[in-house]
């Protein structure tokens, strides 16, 4: 660290807005793709588990297993296979979302009150109608809570993708570069921006949850 240089170098920040924006967008991409993919996979698994409760435990075990694979190792193993493509970064990040998303989606479906399901059945909803018009909408709050949690987690994890190369660096790139340059502004900003992004995602999903569940009472929603 050079003498006299402030911990946070505002000049650098203000003179590199494009760089910062590019990295932020990259980070968002690194987070959003795994989230979407992970969500689709988890939803399918959850629907399957609801029809076939037996698979719940094995799926939890498997997704739990994937969750514990150290990310450094996952990236390193996948790189020779998938090369420098985005897939190498996306696959491990996706697998990390599965445990959280699957559990929450299932919990969401389970939170549908049995009397509501029975009423739907008694009114002559077909299985499909019941799924799409009753179960899925009512599973939304817990599902979004899961997506929110997964988003925050992946935003943190995505910083590790920078080991794959600058192209997948996202905000992790600032951390890597900042350390190589012994430039606190950079690595602090990398960390701070990823936390800020997490906060934004948090707020976004909390808002989204409110917006798509106008029926929920404030109490049912709880905190966090």
């Amino acid at each position, binding site marked *: 660290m050079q003498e006299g240089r402030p911990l946070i170098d505002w000049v650098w920040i203000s003179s590199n807005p494009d760089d910062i924006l590019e990295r932020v967008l990259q980070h968002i991409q690194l987070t959003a793709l795994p989230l979407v993919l992970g969500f689709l996979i988890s939803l399918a698994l959850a629907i399957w588990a609801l029809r076939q409760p037996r698979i719940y435990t094995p799926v939890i075990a498997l997704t739990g297993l994937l969750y514990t694979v150290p990310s450094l190792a996952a990236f390193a193993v996948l790189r020779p296979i998938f090369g420098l493509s985005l897939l190498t970064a996306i696959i491990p990040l996706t697998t990390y979302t599965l445990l959280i998303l699957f559990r929450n989606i299932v919990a969401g479906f389970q939170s549908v*009150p049995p009397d*509501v399901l029975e*009423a739907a059945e*008694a009114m*002559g*909803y*077909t299985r499909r109608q019941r799924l799409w018009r009753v179960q899925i909408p009512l599973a939304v709050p817990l599902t979004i809570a899961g997506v929110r949690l997964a988003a925050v987690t992946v935003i943190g994890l995505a910083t590790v993708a920078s080991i794959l190369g600058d192209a997948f660096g996202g905000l992790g790139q600032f951390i890597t570069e900042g350390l190589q340059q012994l430039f606190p502004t950079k690595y602090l900003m990398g960390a701070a921006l990823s936390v800020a992004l997490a906060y934004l995602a948090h707020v976004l999903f909390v808002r989204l949850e409110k917006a798509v*569940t106008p*029926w929920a009472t404030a109490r049912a929603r709880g905190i966090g």
Partner: protein
Amino acid sequence: MVAPVGRAANPGRTLNRVTSHGGNAATVEFDHVTKHYDAVEGKNGTPGAVNGLSLKVPAGKICVLVGPSGCGKTTSLKMVNRLIEPTSGRILLDGVDASSRDVIELRRGIGYVIQQVGLFPHQTIEENVATVPRLLGWDQSRRMTRASELMALVGLDPGKYARRYPSQLSGGERQRVGVARALAADPPIMLMDEPFGAVDPIVRERLQNEFLRLQEDLAKTILFVTHDIDEAIKMGDLVAVFQLGGTVAQFGTPAEILSQPASDFVTRFVGSDRGLKRLSLFRVSDVALETVPTARVGDPVAPALAKLASHPFEYLLILDHENRPLGWAHRERLLLIEKITPDLANPSSPVLDRRTTLKDALSQLLEADVQAGLVADRNGALRGVLTVDRIADFARLQSISPLAQDGLDED
């Protein structure tokens, strides 16, 4: 012979207006229906949740299934819309075996109301009510019209409630929405499982009355589950008393159940004040009234005194010019005067409406100074006097030959 009242507690009701197959209603018949639950993980199966149930509900009638907890009421109900399939036996709807019909289409033609209401929390009241019409593919505007209509029918202002969510309603309001939703596609049959069980007694009473008033016009065939015998008597054209083990201890009109309990179990179940409960099935208009000595304001006293002399009663009932009763005057107060004046009248008797139930009438009489109820017609003119004795006599006659009294139309 006295014309019986199916359910007199709701004075506005005229049961007989509903003709057997009039309106949109269907017969429901249980034909030796049995349901055994399979043993599920750890739990024992129930040997017979319902055992050989045979029961025929005429179209347009309310049949109440009543009994202690766990006796198979809900199970019986759910077999009608095939939420549960019977182990054996058939359920016939208008003579057609329910099991032969497409289950989705069958259910859309059967309204279903449950204690927990089961409203869709994510849909507005309007959307909830229009659920079955939507399933049936009605267009938007027709659905919304229907929803408004039904909300008005169950006493909810559509302007105020249409856009609310169930969580924004009180328990009583939710129950009404539940009823409206079940009625949406004008189903010939309604199944109601303790629909008013979760609301407080005051609200429950109101909902019961409102529902009976509705049913007057709707004339659906209704299976109604409750474990409250008073509710059963009040709501039912027919009552099936279930006992543990899923059998019917007695099936009949409320009057039959109250006057001739078929077993000790039924006797205990209907309770120790059975005699009084039975009085609530009849109305003042069902009793032959007594005549008492009367005189109009302005009449000379002498003939009135003469009437009194030939009567065991010591009071004269004073009427106004339109024959409306003003009150009683003791014989002795008449001795010194010439003309009947209004100030002689002591209004210490209850005035009874002809549609008051005998139970309420008796209650009012017991509290009165002069235990003779003045019964007036629509214009307030005296029709006669009801005494405790008359009620007692009536009750005695009824209990001697209750079946002869029972005029419920059979199909």
